[in-house]
Each structure stands twice: as C-alpha cells, then as structure tokens.
C-alpha cells in the first residue's frame, strides 16, 4: 500500500504499531464493555422486554411496517427516476424558457429540506401520509437525479455528439441513440447511491404518521404491557434498516468497480451532486 502518510514499517515500527493497536483495541473493547454493562444494568435483556417479539402479532406488525417502507421506497424510486428524466430533458432543452423553468425547479427542490416539502404536502395540501411521503421524496430525489442525468449526458465525449449530428441525426435521436445509452452506464453508481438516500429518507414517513417500519417499532416500544421494550426495538430495527441501505450501497460500489474495469465507459465519471452548491462558482475537486 503506497500512501502519502507512512512508509512500509520496519520491524521496530511494526512492534510499536502492534503496541498502539493493542492499546486502542483495549480502549474500544472497554467502551463496548461499558455499553453492554449499561444495557444489562438497566435491565434491557430481561425476558419481559424480549418475549413480545416471539408473538405472531408483533412480528406481523413489524413485517407490515417493513412492507410499507419498501412500498414507499419503490414508488419514490420509480417516480423520482421519471421526474429526474423529465427535468433533465428540460435542462438540456434547446428552448430557453423550458431550460429556465426546469433549472429553477431543480435548484429550488434541491435547496429545500425534504421534510419541509413532506410536511407542506401533508399539512397544507392535506394529502394522505403515503402520498405526501412519496411526493416529497420524488420532488427532492427527482431533482437531484436530474442533475446526475444532466452531468452524465454532458460528460459523454463531445466527439460522439458531433459524429451523430454529422450523420444527420436529429437532436432527439442523438440523445436516445447515442448519448443516453453511454451516459446511463456511467451514471448507474451515482443513481443507485441516490436511491440509498431515498430509502433512508422513507423513515421520514414516521414523522407524518405513515405506518412504516419505524412507526411499527415505536408502537411496540411504547407499549406498557410489554414493559416498554424501547432498546430491544432499536436493536432489532436498526440492523434491518442499516442492512438494507448497506446492501444498496454495496451494489452501487460493485457496479462502479465493475465499470472501472470496462474500457467502454472509460473517461466518463459522474459524481453524485448531493446537496449542491447553491451559488454559481462553487465546484467540486476531482475526487
């Protein structure tokens, strides 16, 4: 491993590093031990707090919550891909008013907290929780994806576009036959990473009483009959949430690694433009 930071260590340094390693491992283990001790001393592992999870009703409640989470995610993912496509087309349009309108939309929805949009749709437009959640996620992730699409199309080598025009293709043909197919491959990792954001944000539905996974957890956690199994609920819910997101992140990573080996998509790299520099002139460094 070559790094700017240290040479390949010699025998004495290796020994020193081992010593540091042992010390820090001991420290980390001590911290973990503290947490476990706290868990035990506050009685988080008593049978009363854990038996509810063997009940069928509780399991069904959790599964229904998980199903609702996945439903919201699937809807939001499909719709935001569609909206992203529309907005990106708008931003790449040859007509100035169309370009202008879509730019304003994209910049506004990227600058707003998702939760504000969800609450607005839920409170002001009196929508159902699911609709409010999906609409809010779609507006935000759709406009972020629009930026991904746009940078992806623009990142395709200029020569491709010029050659296509030289063959007499129309703009639509150039887009659909030449640019987009090449851009999609390069954009795929960035798109999947954005879907991770959408998946994570479905948990916002909890705040507008959409009956998703976290909501189911809260329902169980605050049940007096089950001795308020708050920590057990967190211990069951978090690994599932984190696992789902990690799986998607891992997929994005895998796709991008595979593409780095593929000579056909060489040279086109699309970073996720997450929150976005709001003022002109901001740029990101080459990663």
């Amino acid at each position, binding site marked *: 491993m070559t790094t700017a930071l*240290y040479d390949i260590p010699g025998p004495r340094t290796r020994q020193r590093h081992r010593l540091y390693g042992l010390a820090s491992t001991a420290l980390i283990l001590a911290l973990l031990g503290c947490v476990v001790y706290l868990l035990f001393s506050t009685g988080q592992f008593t049978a009363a707090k854990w038996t509810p999870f063997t009940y069928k009703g509780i399991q069904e409640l959790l599964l229904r919550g998980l199903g609702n989470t996945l439903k919201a995610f699937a809807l939001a993912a499909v719709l935001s891909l569609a909206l992203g496509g529309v907005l990106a087309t708008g931003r790449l349009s040859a007509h100035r008013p169309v370009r202008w309108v879509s730019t304003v939309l994209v910049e506004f929805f990227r600058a707003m907290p998702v*939760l504000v949009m969800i609450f607005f749709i839920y409170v002001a437009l009196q929508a159902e929780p699911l609709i409010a959640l999906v609409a809010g996620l779609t507006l935000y992730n759709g406009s972020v994806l629009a930026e991904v699409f746009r940078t992806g199309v623009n990142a395709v080598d200029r020569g491709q576009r010029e050659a296509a025009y030289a063959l007499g293709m129309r703009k639509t043909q150039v887009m659909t036959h030449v640019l987009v197919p090449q851009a999609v491959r390069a954009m795929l990792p960035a798109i999947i990473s954005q879907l991770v954001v959408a998946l994570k944000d479905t948990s916002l539905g909890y705040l507008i009483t959409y009956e998703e996974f976290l909501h189911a957890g809260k329902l169980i956690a605050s049940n007096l009959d089950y001795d308020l199994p708050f920590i057990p609920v967190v211990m069951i819910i978090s690994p599932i949430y984190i696992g789902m997101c990690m799986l998607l992140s891992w997929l994005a990573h895998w796709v991008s690694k595979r593409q780095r080996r593929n000579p056909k998509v060489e040279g086109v790299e699309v970073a996720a433009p997450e929150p976005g520099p709001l003022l002109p002139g901001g740029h*990101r460094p080459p990663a």
Partner: protein
Amino acid sequence: MNVLLDNLSLYGKGLLGTVELTVFASLLALVLGFLMAAFRVAPVGSLRALGTAWVTVLRNTPLTLLFFAVVLGLPRFGLVLPFNLFAILALGCYTSAFICEAVRSGINTVPVGQGEAARSLGMTFPQTLGGIVLPQAFRSVIPPIGSTLIALAKNSAIAGAFSVTELLGVYKPLNELGYSIIWTFVWIAVGYLIVTLTISALFNVLEKRFGVAR
C-alpha cells in the same frame, strides 16, 4: 405577509434554533469527521477498523432512526439531556461520517511526494498528517464540506419533529392559530434558504481564499 409580521418573534426563535443546531452540530461533525478520517488512514489496524465501522454504519443509518435512538433511547440509560443537545449529538455524529469521507478523499489528492518529503525530514506520522498533509487536503476539501454542511442544515428540520425548537416546528402553533398554511410554509422555506445560502456564500469565500487554483 401578515403571518411573518404578526409572528416575527416566533419565526425569529425558530430561525435561531435552526442556526444554533447547525452551528454546534457542524462543529461536532467537523471534529469527529477529521478524527475519524485520521483513524481511517492511520497505520494502526484497530483504529482503521473503528473509523471504517463508524463511517459504514452511520452513512447507512436513516437520520430519523438515529434521532429516534438518541432522543428517545439514551434516556433509558439514565442519560437525560435537553432535547437540543440530543439533536446536536445525533446530527453531528451522522454528518461526521460524510465529513470523514470528504476529508479522506481530500487526503488522497495530496501528492505522495509531499508525504515522502515530510518523512525524509524525519517527521512522525502525526507531524506528517497534521503539518503537511491535512492543511493541503483541507484546501481541496472545502467544497464538499460546504455541501455536507448545507445538507446538515437541511437535515436539522428533523429535530423539529423531536421537540426541538427550530424553523420547521414553527408551522404547528401558526396552524393552530389559523394562519394561512401556504404562507406559513413559504416563510419557513425562505428561512431555510437564508441559512443554506449563507453557508454556501461562506464556503464560496473560503474557497476563493484557500481553494486550490486548478
């Protein structure tokens, strides 16, 4: 317009709450983020593992879940703090994972020769990292940290749903008072725009001063 003028103090309090959350959580996130980045590039295996675990877990945790666990969970351990301290803790830890990754990719942009030169002068690992590599990494890391902190400011809205005074929470009393909901939200949106645009402008200035000219 009336909504804003009649309730200027309420809006002011909300905006102040958001700013306060953003500032303190940013500080926590920067400190933790740089620390974790240092861990992730350290020669000591267990520290590297800690850094990696920290980043992987926090980046894949929904922030709402983190808030849920921190604000409602920590009191079960007998740790009772004001809600806004809990919110700062949750926001700061969550964002630190993103800061860490930004810093780490910044460290990768520093030419290897810089570190080699530092080492050949006899500098130790902390000296190389703190004196040579991080200051240069910092310059190329300004824009991504700016975007991360803008995201933090936007994420602070979630704190409002967990009983912390902040901008989004303003809608509730105003809604009960019967003000036009649409206008209530318009001014909330303006408030968030003010916060995010300020951060954005601040980082543009920082970038102009310290950024690497390419």
